[in-house]
């Protein structure tokens, strides 16, 4: 029986080439997207699945409320919490602190590599399932200056071979001896530091001021993470109880209205996907992204299923006879139902094979050849087949044999035309709405790429300053004939997260105002082509002491000046300590990306915060210029990796090209699926109506009126879809544009053009099928009846 179903399915698929092609193509494309998402979901949910005690491991989180009432849920805790829990509770088996502070370039074996390491204790290895490739877990931190490195880091420094006993040198944090090497864990972990050093090294570093005072500080919540392994049978209630006790430390704070802190727990398996706590260390995507991905993929798949449903129902006129015969021969309804479900499952498996083939060609990097994932895929395509097949199978298996066999024309299809129309409208609504959204996003990002932010960006080379004296290297650079200007700065204008912040207080305003600032020297204004509306630049000969600042117009206003000129000479306090006077006021410019409005900002002369040199180059041979600059830079930083960027390029790289291309891809697929579906439907209905067309032709109808007759219903549907899509697209676009303080207007014309494009595509699709129907010789259709 099953064999018969399968044979029938394959022969039917082979006979209905267009139908099979449309369905397999649509399903395969959307399945490929689904599979990509499935792989990424699988990866996301396999984080930290190798810890033997995973069910008993908790991370302590901190709920912070500041004095002004803002609330933060932090993934980190005060550093001393780990020790406190370890000392006092019988339900706790092990506690460890992971203090993420050892982040700097580190040298070993003649190589200097940026290392992201944390301090922790031996309990770390008893709580988590990390295994050592080399070294002894029990004595791993016997020496306070020992460090355990990841296999990856060990290989980058020393290649293969056992590096235990070798020394890694951090210029700021001292030398560490490798006491062990971690095996690469079988899956991702949210704990993905390059190395773990002994917590015993921290007191000395705090004394030498290399690290801030954290060990004894109960009110600093940053960078320190506390993990607790509870005793067997003690779960989240036990840990929450003990955390409630620990939270009493902050009762005084609450009483004095200095804000509050309290602790909460997070089971290990809830850390990923990220719940977007503040100060989190996980590299896993947040829930929002995971859900969006899954929704988009499912949406596409549902669109492809709509095609299957629509085409199968339309095509059922051709299958009706078969159903009638089967029933007369004794088939029960469920047997017919099963036959059609099997057919759709087979179709899905074929699409699945095509999807996998496409994926392994297009994304060979994707790890799909894994038994677990393949099994997941198989189940997934089986479910898709069943879901897509249910409505058509129900509809087809309901045919009464006598009606089908007597008179094939008046079969009433399940759900009638209404269902099919609805599905087409949904598909095109999605497609049109996403086209509208894409157009807005693309316009905004192209606007962002070219908008004048008020500073120069062309021909400016950004070079890292490292730890060299900025004046020395600057002098050397200015010696190059192609370098027109050079400035040292703490950040690149227009890039996100490069602004630093401080609080500025005036005599009148004791509370102060928060300012963004860039630490720069006095060539910054010239190099960046900024305009002074009042006052002057920093004086050329600056002392070590910070004495002057330059602010922008917005800041001058915020400090209570009516005109920029009034601000000149005003004395202000920075962070309550440094008194400086305002020497210049800059015309407002977008120092931050245009998502953000222009806020009060300042240029400060703070050489210790300089991180970059920005070189204005003359027009000319770019590679040669870079080579010349690199020569000088390398002479200051022997052995260091050279990385320089052109400012205009690094700004342009943030123009959302990835977002736009990703969205275009989705729009393309969505539209393609909708167009394929339309093609199929029009093709079948034209086929069904060929006799009517022939009769009309014999009666004297001309080609145009017949084309209109065949096409108008579908064009109407597309207009309806556009009407529904318009508010959705406009709403989505406005929400997107609200992210930006500086944005393009909602372009109705570009949207109309986008719709026109889709409309033309639909028109071509429809005409490609109706044209042939209309051209056919009527005698041919009327004779053979």
């Amino acid at each position, binding site marked *: *029986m099953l064999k*018969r179903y399968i*044979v*029938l399915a394959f*022969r*039917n698929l082979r*006979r209905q080439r267009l139908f099979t092609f449309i369905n397999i193509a649509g399903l395969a494309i959307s399945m490929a997207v689904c599979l990509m998402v499935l792989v990424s979901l699988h990866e996301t949910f396999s984080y930290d699945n190798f810890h033997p005690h995973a069910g008993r491991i908790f991370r302590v989180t901190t709920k912070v409320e500041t004095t002004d009432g803002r609330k933060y849920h932090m993934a980190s805790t005060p550093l001393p919490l780990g020790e406190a829990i370890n000392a006092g509770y019988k339900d706790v088996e092990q506690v460890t602190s992971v203090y993420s502070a050892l982040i700097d370039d580190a040298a070993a074996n003649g190589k200097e590599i940026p290392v992201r390491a944390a301090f922790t204790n031996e309990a770390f290895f008893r709580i988590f399932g990390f295994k050592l490739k080399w070294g002894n877990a029990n004595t791993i931190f016997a020496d306070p200056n020992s460090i355990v490195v990841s296999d990856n880091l060990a290989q980058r420094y020393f290649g293969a071979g056992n590096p235990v006993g070798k020394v890694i040198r951090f210029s700021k944090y001292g030398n560490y001896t490798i006491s062990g090497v971690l095996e690469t864990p079988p899956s991702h972990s949210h704990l993905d530091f390059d190395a773990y050093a002994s917590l015993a090294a921290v007191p000395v570093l705090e004394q030498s001021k290399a690290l801030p005072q954290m060990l004894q500080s109960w009110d600093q919540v940053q960078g320190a993470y506390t993990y607790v392994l509870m005793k067997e049978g003690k779960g989240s209630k036990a840990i929450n109880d003990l955390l409630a006790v620990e939270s009493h430390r902050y009762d005084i704070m609450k009483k004095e209205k200095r804000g509050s802190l309290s602790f909460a727990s997070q089971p290990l398996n809830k850390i990923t996907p990220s719940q977007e706590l503040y100060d989190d260390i996980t590299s896993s995507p947040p829930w929002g992204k995971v859900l969006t991905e899954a929704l988009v993929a499912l949406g596409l798949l549902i669109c492809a299923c709509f095609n299957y449903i629509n085409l199968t129902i339309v095509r059922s006129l051709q299958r009706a*006879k*078969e159903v*009638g*015969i*089967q*029933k*007369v*021969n*004794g*088939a*029960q*309804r469920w*047997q017919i139902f099963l036959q059609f479900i099997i057919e759709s499952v087979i179709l899905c498996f074929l699409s699945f094979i095509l999807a996998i083939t496409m994926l392994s060609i297009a994304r060979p990097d994707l790890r799909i050849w894994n038994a677990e994932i393949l099994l997941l895929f198989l189940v997934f395509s089986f479910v898709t087949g069943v879901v897509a097949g249910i409505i058509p199978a129900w509809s087809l298996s309901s045919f*009464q*044999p*006598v009606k089908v*066999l*007597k008179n094939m024309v008046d079969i009433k299809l399940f759900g009638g035309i209404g269902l099919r129309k609805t599905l087409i409208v949904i598909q095109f609504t999605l497609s049109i709405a996403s086209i509208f959204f894409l157009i807005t996003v693309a316009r905004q990002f192209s606007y962002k790429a070219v908008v004048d932010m008020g500073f120069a960006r062309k021909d400016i080379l950004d070079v890292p300053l490292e730890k060299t004296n900025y004046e020395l290297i600057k002098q050397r650079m200015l010696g190059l004939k192609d370098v027109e200007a050079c400035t040292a700065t703490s950040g690149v204008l227009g890039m996100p997260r490069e602004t630093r912040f401080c609080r500025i207080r005036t005599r009148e305003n004791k509370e102060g105002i928060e300012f963004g600032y860039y630490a720069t020297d006095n060539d910054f204004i010239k190099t960046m082509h900024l305009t002074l509306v009042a006052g002057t630049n920093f004086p050329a000969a600056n002392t070590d002491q910070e004495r002057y600042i330059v602010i922008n117009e917005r800041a001058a206003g915020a400090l209570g000046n009516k005109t920029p000129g009034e601000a000149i000479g005003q004395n202000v306090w920075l962070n309550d300590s440094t008194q400086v006077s305002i020497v210049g006021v800059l015309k407002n410019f977008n120092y931050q990306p245009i998502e953000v409005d222009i806020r009060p900002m300042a240029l400060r002369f703070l050489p210790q915060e300089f991180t970059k040199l920005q070189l204005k180059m003359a027009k000319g041979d770019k590679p040669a210029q870079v080579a010349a600059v690199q020569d000088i830079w390398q002479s200051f930083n022997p052995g260091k990796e050279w990385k320089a960027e052109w400012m205009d390029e690094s700004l342009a790289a943030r123009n959302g090209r990835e977002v736009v291309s990703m969205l275009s891809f989705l729009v393309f697929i969505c539209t393609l699926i909708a167009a394929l579906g339309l093609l199929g439907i029009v093709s079948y209905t034209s086929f069904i109506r060929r006799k009517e067309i022939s009769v009309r032709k014999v009666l004297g109808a001309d080609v145009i009126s017949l084309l209109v007759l065949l096409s108008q219903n579908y064009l109407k549907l597309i207009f309806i879809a556009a009407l529904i899509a318009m508010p959705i697209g406009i709403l989505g676009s406005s929400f997107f544009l609200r992210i930006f303080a500086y944005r393009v207007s909602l372009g109705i014309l570009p949207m109309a053009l986008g719709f026109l494009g889709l409309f033309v595509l639909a028109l071509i699709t429809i005409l490609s099928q109706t044209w042939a129907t209309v051209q056919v010789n009527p005698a041919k259709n009327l004779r053979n009846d």
Partner: protein
Amino acid sequence: MIQLQNITKYYPVGLGRNFILKDIDLTINEGEFVSIMGPSGSGKSTLLHIMGLLEEPSEGQYLFEGERVDKMNEKKRTQLHRGSIGFVFQAYHLIDELTVYENIETPLLYKNVSASERKSRVADVLDRFNIVAKKDLFPNQLSGGQQQLVGIARAIVAEPRVILADEPTGNLHSDQAKSIMELFKELNEKDKITIVQVTHSDVNATYGNRIIQLRDGHIRS
């Protein structure tokens, strides 16, 4: 075997009714070969469909082997199709995607006959109808007469007690029609299968042993 009592079939048309069959009383005994004749629209096919349980009468009683079947549910009706009734159609109604062999096998599949028995029974029928050589062809590779032969083979493979044939030779030319009718006669005489056929042709009607004339939904005898 088949007892129809006061069978009436009508469709509502506007406020009134359009009668297809009216007060049909008819008994067909086991082993008979009955031909139903009459002009187009006289209700022949509807009568045959009611006998074959493909349609339900609006009024009246239908006893099949003494059992009331006019109000049977679909499941029981399907059981009867499988066991007792075979159909032959004017348009053959073979499944295009199945070979001759597979088409004949279909009723046995639904009857849950074991694979080995299916094989021998289909082989028997193929042999008897002399179509062994054609068993792997698809319907569209056969002539009309051959297709109807397959249609009859399919109707008898499940060993029904009644064959209902709706103008079985309507699409065939006379030579083919003659051989089909002889086959029916043979099935009736040798295998004792009751046969009811609807036909337009006086010649075909003579193969049977009783003729029922239908006009405007009434039996004229």
